[in-house]
Structures are given as structure tokens and as C-alpha cells.
């Protein structure tokens, strides 16, 4: 029989680490699982191992994760890096989590589960995004954080804080940025003005953001008001085509990094049956999460960017409150101090989510991005084009799940992570329905492909 954990945390980012610290401090038996080689999550990826040169290029926000990382490494909890969660299901004792470790499947049982598996980048179905030579800005940053790899020359295209941050980091490392094509619609700036009030409640963040934006505009070839980006090239990317004020331009380049903000990774919560709600403001599906991370499923919590995109500090606070809530439910340990901490955390989390509204409004993706057309590949795994999807959507299919069985879009290895959102947009446009009515793709096990041999070796539950 497997050992039964009191608290299993998926993801060792700011949210997961903070929750594990709180729960293990209270004496709970905690296990943290993460697919990365070391703890830290997206923001603090590889922080424990990064050399001084990497730290310098990545900047002060990166290094500021050191105290949290140190507290996590000192916490009395089990931590398993390099494991990929491929299945989770309800169990008489709580939950069973199946993971792949060096190609072997192992299962863990836990009474309570926290999903802190973070965000992914919004998929951007533009013409040519499937060509070699195109990757996401997040990918570029991961290469820098974990492998100390830099492009020799690059075009950055899209919108959002991560794109600007990467530009800053690449500049610090001496990378030639041929151009930064900013797709933020000009109207977003006007719509964001009222949100300045919210942004002003976190003045340091606001100032840092403004500075980051201004510096890039001065220091690199910065082209704003860009729309309709396409990657050109035969087998490999050889350039980017884009439009500014109705005029079409080409730039030659063989490496392009795209970004349009982040969306939560909801697949695990969906697999366990958590309802999803469409957030029109953030333009993404989200799991319904309570103030202390609770979900409608007993014993299941979600925290950090896996719930709602809020950034590292918010993730850290959400992880902490989720961990405390787990402890309180275990020991009825409702001391006055805990109550006060809880109140403070709730207030800060609410306030920071409100302040985040400024970023959400400013960087809301442009409408043209949700209207891929022609032979632009939407589902990369099954190579299904926008026109094929629109044709089926026009016949009046019920939603993305029916569309999946007609076109195979969303059936591939990535389980619709790279196409789900855009399938939804295409159905919504074709049938003139709001996104909230077009359900997200259903998630089926396994969360990532597993071969029969691995399944056969899977230890008995």
C-alpha cells in the first residue's frame, strides 16, 4: 500500500512552495511534485543553480526569489523534481496522482491536493506559427534561465509584460533585437486609463512597468500599432510580415518569438471535474476558485496562476493562504494570529487582483488574433486549418467538443492546449455566440501521452 500524504502539491513555483512551507511547518506530511529539474516555477526557474552572469542578465526580480526558495528547500516536506503528472483521479482516501519519473509510472495517494501548476502562454494561431524558427517568448526566456542560451538575433512580436521583460533581458545580454513588433491595440491605452486608479495601489509595480515599457521604446527598434502578423518562409521562417496603419511591411529574420500574455493551465482541475468559467476581461477559461483556493471538489484546492493569472507575488500569497486553510482544516488550529494572517492575506489578494486589472486591460489581446482564417494552422498536432474548422462551425455544430470529433482538432498529443482557445473563438465567431456559451474542450486522461509499456509497469493502486 502506498503511503498516504496529507497534502500533495503539484508545482514548485511561488504558489506551490508557499503552500508546502505552511503545511509542513504545521507538521503535515507534504509531497511536492514538479516536472522541472529544480524548484522555483516559471519566474524563479533554475534560480538555485543559475550562475552570476545569468542572474545579472535576468535582473533583480529573478534573484528576489532566493529567500522563498531557501525556505522551501529547508522545509520538512518531500520534493520530487523531474516528474510529469499524467493522471489524477478521485480515490476513497482522497486522490491518486500518477506521474512519470524517468520513463516509469509511479502513483501517490493523498487526502488533500493542491494544483499550483501555473500558467502557459496564450496560443497565437497566426500564419506560419508552426514553422521552425518560431517559438514563444516564454520559450526564449526558459532557454536563458535553464540553459543559459541566447539567440544571436531575434524579432520579438506580440504584447504583454513578459515580452518587454524578455526584451530587457536580451538587451542586457547583448542580443541583437532586430525589432519588437508591439500588437497592443492603441485603443487599449484609452480603455486602460480608468484602471490607473487600481494600478496606483501598487505604485512600485506600476513604476517598474512604465519604466520597462519606456526603456524598450527608446533602446530597441520598437514598432507599435502592429497587426496581422504572419511568419513567412518555406520550410523555415525567413521573415515576418505585418501591418501598421493599413500598410504592409516585411522584415527578414530567421528567429521570431511570439507572446500574447498568459492563460491558466486548467487541464488538471478539469480532469477532476471542476467547473470552468469564461473570464471575458482576461479572455480565458478559469477554474472557479474560492478565497483560500477551495474548489467545489472536496479536498481539492487551486492556487497561483493555475487559478487566475496574477503574477508571482499574488501566487505566493495564494499559495500561503491555501496552505494555511489546509492546516486549519486539519488541526482546527484557529489561533487568533492565524485568523489575523488570514484576514490580511484575503485583503491583499483581493487588492492585488484588482490592481492587476490595469495589466489585463492594457494587454487584452487584439481582436484580429481571435480570427485566424484560410490555411493558417489552428490545431498543430493534427494539422487542421482555420478554414476547415470554420466550415464545420458554420454547419452549426454544437461546440468545440463536437467539432473535435468532426475535424480531429484538439485530439492530438497536446490535448488541445495549443488550439482549444482558438477553436472556441472560431465557433463563437461563426455562430455569433458569446465565448461563455462555447464550452472549453473536455479533458480526458492521460494528461500527457503514455505508452502501453509504461502503463503496464504502473504499480498497483
Amino acid at each position: 500500500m502506498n503511503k498516504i500524504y496529507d497534502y500533495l502539491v503539484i508545482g514548485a513555483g511561488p504558489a506551490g512552495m508557499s503552500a508546502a512551507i505552511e503545511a509542513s511547518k504545521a507538521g503535515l506530511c507534504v509531497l511536492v511534485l514538479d516536472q522541472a529539474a529544480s524548484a522555483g516555477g516559471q519566474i524563479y526557474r533554475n534560480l538555485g543553480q543559475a550562475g552570476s552572469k545569468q542572474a545579472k542578465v535576468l535582473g533583480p526580480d529573478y534573484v528576489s526569489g532566493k529567500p522563498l526558495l531557501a525556505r522551501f528547500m529547508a522545509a520538512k516536506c518531500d520534493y520530487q523534481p523531474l516528474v510529469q503528472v499524467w493522471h489524477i483521479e478521485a480515490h476513497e482516501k482522497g486522490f491518486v496522482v500518477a506521474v512519470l519519473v524517468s520513463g516509469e509510472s509511479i502513483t501517490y495517494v493523498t487526502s488533500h491536493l493542491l494544483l499550483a501548476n501555473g500558467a502557459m502562454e496564450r496560443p497565437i494561431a497566426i500564419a506560419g506559427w508552426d514553422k521552425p524558427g518560431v517559438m514563444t517568448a516564454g520559450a526564449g526566456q526558459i532557454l536563458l534561465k535553464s540553459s543559459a542560451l541566447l539567440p544571436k538575433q531575434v524579432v520579438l512580436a506580440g504584447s504583454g509584460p513578459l515580452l518587454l521583460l524578455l526584451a530587457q533581458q536580451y538587451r542586457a545580454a547583448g542580443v541583437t533585437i532586430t525589432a519588437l513588433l508591439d500588437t497592443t491595440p492603441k485603443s487599449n491605452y484609452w480603455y486602460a486609463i480608468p484602471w490607473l486608479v487600481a494600478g496606483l495601489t501598487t505604485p512600485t509595480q506600476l513604476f517598474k512597468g512604465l519604466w520597462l515599457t519606456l526603456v524598450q521604446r527608446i533602446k530597441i527598434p520598437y514598432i507599435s500599432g502592429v497587426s496581422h502578423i504572419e511568419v513567412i518562409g518555406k520550410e523555415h521562417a525567413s521573415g515576418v510580415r505585418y501591418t501598421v496603419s493599413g500598410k504592409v511591411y516585411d522584415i527578414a529574420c530567421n528567429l521570431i518569438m511570439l507572446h500574447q500574455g498568459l492563460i491558466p493551465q486548467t487541464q488538471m482541475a478539469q480532469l477532476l471535474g471542476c467547473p470552468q468559467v469564461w473570464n471575458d476581461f482576461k479572455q480565458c477559461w478559469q477554474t472557479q476558485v474560492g478565497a483560500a483556493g477551495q474548489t467545489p471538489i472536496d479536498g481539492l484546492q487551486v492556487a497561483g496562476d493555475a487559478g487566475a493569472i496574477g503574477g508571482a507575488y499574488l501566487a505566493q500569497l495564494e499559495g500561503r493562504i491555501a496552505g494555511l486553510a489546509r492546516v486549519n482544516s486539519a488541526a482546527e488550529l484557529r489561533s487568533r494570529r492565524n485568523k489575523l494572517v488570514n484576514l490580511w492575506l484575503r485583503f491583499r489578494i483581493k487588492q492585488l487582483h484588482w490592481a492587476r486589472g490595469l495589466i489585463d486591460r492594457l494587454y487584452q489581446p487584439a481582436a484580429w488574433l481571435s480570427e485566424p482564417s484560410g490555411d493558417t494552422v489552428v490545431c498543430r498536432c493534427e494539422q487542421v486549418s482555420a478554414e476547415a474548422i470554420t466550415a464545420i462551425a458554420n454547419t452549426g455544430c454544437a461546440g468545440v467538443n463536437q467539432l473535435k470529433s468532426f475535424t480531429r482538432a484538439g485530439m492530438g498529443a497536446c490535448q488541445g492546449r495549443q488550439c482549444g482557445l482558438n477553436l472556441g473563438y472560431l465557433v463563437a465567431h461563426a455562430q455569433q455566440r458569446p465565448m461563455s456559451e462555447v464550452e472549453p474542450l473536455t479533458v480526458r486522461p492521460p494528461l500527457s501521452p503514455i505508452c502501453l509499456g509504461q502503463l503496464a509497469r504502473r504499480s498497483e493502486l
Partner: protein
Amino acid sequence: MTDSLFRSLIKDPPQCPIVVNGVEHQVPVQLSVAAALLYLGHLATRQHPVSGEPRAPFCHMGVCFECLVSIDGQHKQRACLRQITPYMCIETLMAGLN
């Protein structure tokens, strides 16, 4: 294989031997398998099973499944989620040699 689009931030990084498509190479120790392939100038790492078009790692965080290669005889591994180890045998999934 062509000239790499990437370089290492670190000057003279410590090296590790790996075997790609049967050929031994020295690459910086810190690399993921996907990073190693980029570093060595593999623009594409697999051919799409439906269209035959070349594809390359896209997200480097395990969500796009574009980086599938075979590693030490295990097929369809996500190259971005694995770190290189000495003499690791990597086969890209290109029909012709890449």
C-alpha cells in the same frame, strides 16, 4: 543542420558529450535536450506525421509536444523536459538526416 541561431551566454562553459543521430558532439552541460538540439543547429527536430512538414520545439515548457524526439531508445520524449546526461543518445524524428 545549419549554423546555430543560438549561442551560450557563458564564455567557455563546461562541456558534456552527447550523441545526436549517431554523431558525438560536445555541448554545454547546462542544456536541456531541446536546447542542445538548437545549440547544435538543428532548426527542425521532427517531421509532422500528417503533413510531413518540419517542426521544432515551440514552448520549451512541456505544453506543445512539438519537441518529441527519441532519447536513449525511449520514443516520443519531450526534449524540453529532459536535461542532457553524458553520452545520452538522441534521435531526431526527421526522415532524412537533419
